[in-house]
């Protein structure tokens, strides 16, 4: 069992019994569900919108080389520097290189999931730089030295009391129970950070091949400020984010908002086409875009699961997933949690270490149903199990199924097994729940089904008499 798998099992066990955690997550996600349903019902045809979105993404991902090339050359023509990174180490070095060249000391960041993926903050801090997260939720988890709990709602696992206490400890603020006051404390501190930061780092939600732009979706205005005030803007994004046409955003922007947070449109949807252009009064002098592969091409090479690269990171599959809702975000131990994380992490970080995530699913299909770009998530989880089994067979499971196959193919053996089972079940209470109990993982929380008093054959014979 891999370390990641042990950690998953341990944390899942603990959190599924944590009733406070459960009620917290259920309350937050209930609010999301109500908002999402009301906004979704406004669409003239949500299902056709999903189909169209899936087709556009299919086109984009299956012609990735063409669109990526077009995107990069259009962006470069507007004075942007485009960098290419095959690995997270390369991406970190590129960003550190830019920051060092500019003699930068302080960095303001808006939410960058690819940054979490490559552990950018640690690398920057190790190099002696100050990095401040500006998204409110990210700021909170940064102060707690914690990973985001959810890639859309990073601080969903905390209540205001805990945040107030955190601010008291770390920022010396007065305790308060008012979410607005808490926000104001962070706003006050961060305002100055935007103005004094040398470099702003952002992610990107979409990239437009046709016009050479990146698109950033946010609610708070922190990304807008991050891209407006510092003299250097560095954006880090995965290579799969490209969309062919500017018009495509007319569909993707509202769908991301509705599926992700139950909004008509997210507060700020901003398109950036390079650094400050001639005749413009503000904005960064330099714009660097770092395009990250980090095994995305590995997922691309799997035609069966390639559509997992369609993901727009809305988080809808996490929000509806019965496993996520019970085990929580940190249990996954991954940058991308929930069903989509369970599908892509084995590709991005290794099948052997992460194959257990394919089993973190009840296969109910709620994720597939929720996905705005129609990724076949629950089938991919099933395929993940198959792939893991084919590449890393477990000898005792194979043996067990062989024996099972042998037994059920011979009626004599079936009869023998069921008679034995009846005896065994009568004796079971003697060892039930103890270490000797072979069915312990099951009987710890459930009752075993009763073996029938007679087999069908026995029943048939007795009926004839």
């Amino acid at each position, binding site marked *: 069992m891999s370390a990641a798998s042990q950690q998953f099992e341990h944390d899942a066990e603990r959190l599924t019994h944590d009733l406070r955690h459960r009620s917290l997550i259920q309350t937050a996600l209930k609010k999301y569900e109500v908002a999402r349903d009301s906004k979704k019902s406004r669409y003239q045809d949500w299902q056709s919108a999903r189909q169209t979105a899936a087709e556009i993404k299919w086109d984009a991902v299956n012609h990735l080389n063409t669109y990526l090339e077009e995107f990069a050359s259009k962006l470069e023509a507007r004075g942007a520097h485009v960098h290419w990174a095959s690995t997270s180490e390369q991406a970190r070095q590129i960003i550190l290189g830019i920051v060092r060249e500019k003699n930068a000391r302080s960095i303001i960041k808006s939410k960058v999931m690819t940054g979490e993926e490559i552990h950018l903050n640690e690398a920057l801090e190790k190099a002696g730089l100050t990095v401040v997260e500006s998204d409110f939720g990210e700021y909170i988890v940064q102060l707690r030295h914690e990973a985001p709990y959810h890639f859309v709602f990073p601080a969903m696992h905390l209540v205001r009391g805990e945040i107030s206490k955190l601010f008291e400890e770390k920022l010396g603020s007065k305790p308060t129970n008012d979410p607005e006051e808490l926000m104001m404390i962070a706003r006050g501190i961060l305002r100055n950070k935007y*103005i004094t930061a040398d470099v702003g780092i952002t992610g990107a939600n979409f990239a437009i091949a046709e016009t050479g732009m990146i698109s950033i979706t946010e609610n708070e205005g922190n990304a807008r400020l991050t891209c407006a005030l510092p003299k250097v803007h560095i954006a880090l994004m995965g290579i799969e984010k490209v969309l062919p046409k500017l018009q495509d955003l007319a569909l993707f922007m509202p769908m991301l908002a509705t599926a992700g947070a139950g909004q008509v449109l997210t507060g700020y949807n*901003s398109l950036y086409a390079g650094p400050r252009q001639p005749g413009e009064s*503000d904005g960064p002098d330099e714009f660097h875009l770092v395009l990250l592969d980090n095994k995305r091409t590995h997922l691309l090479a799997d035609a069966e699961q390639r559509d997992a690269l369609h993901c727009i990171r809305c988080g809808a599959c996490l929000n509806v997933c019965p496993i996520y809702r019970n085990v929580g975000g940190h249990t996954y131990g991954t940058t991308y949690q929930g069903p989509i994380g369970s599908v892509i992490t084995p590709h991005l970080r290794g099948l052997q270490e992460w194959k257990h995530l394919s089993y973190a699913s009840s296969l109910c299909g709620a994720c597939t149903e929720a996905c705005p770009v129609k990724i076949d998530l629950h089938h991919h989880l099933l395929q993940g199990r198959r792939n893991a089994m084919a590449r890393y067979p477990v000898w005792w499971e194979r043996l067990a199924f062989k024996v099972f196959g042998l037994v059920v193919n011979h009626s004599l053996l079936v009869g023998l097994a069921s008679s034995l089972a009846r005896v065994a079940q009568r004796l079971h209470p003697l060892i039930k729940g103890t270490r000797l109990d072979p069915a312990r993982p099951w009987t710890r929380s459930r009752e075993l089904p009763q073996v029938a008093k007679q087999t069908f054959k026995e029943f048939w014979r007795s009926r004839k008499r």
Partner: protein
Amino acid sequence: MNERENIFGRIREALRVQAPVPGAHPAGKGGAKVHTVSEAEAAKHIHEWLPPVGETFEQHAELFRANALDLRAEFHLLDDVREMEDHLRGLAASEGWKKVATHAGELTDRVCAALGLPWMTTDGEYDVRELESCDAGISQCEALIAQTGSVLVSSRSSGGRALSVLPPHHVVLARRDQLLPDLPTAFALLQSKYQSDFPSLISFITGPSRTGDIERILVLGAHGPRKLTILCV
């Protein structure tokens, strides 16, 4: 080190095998509905799937008003520029504005001159601290979008990148003919207006700055403006 070529090499290699088309069943499982994807086709239909917007200006204005209300933004449809000036004077008095920031423009010039307050502009080099200390940022826009209640701004039409997010109150001055029905129309406008010479920032602002990061409770005025007022003549 040429990572660009390495990445493209891996992409080309990966794409040698075709992926199933969305909506089609896995090969051989029967009833496969295979249709080819055409970008131009898709774009034509987007407006048919999105929320309905109505036909007339009145319907669009009504929809924008309803969306603005939902978003806690203020929207006022006024008769003429004089009324706009009065409205803004009223706002300035009730909120006790001492200084405002704006940019050169047909509406902003007239209205700010009538405001009688000290003002700065963000048309050339400006001091960020000074902008931060202003009580309101007054800007024009590219368009208003009824479907979503959004204000479309750009670095060229609306005083740069910071004016619409740094001051605590963003006031948008718009003309009636700038109210567009939906998002596809807004993108079409951008494309026909700028061809390939786009401003470096284009932003769809939908309501005042907000966060739901604490217990999914809505808080306005996260990092950007706490108030958004849209005045349309």
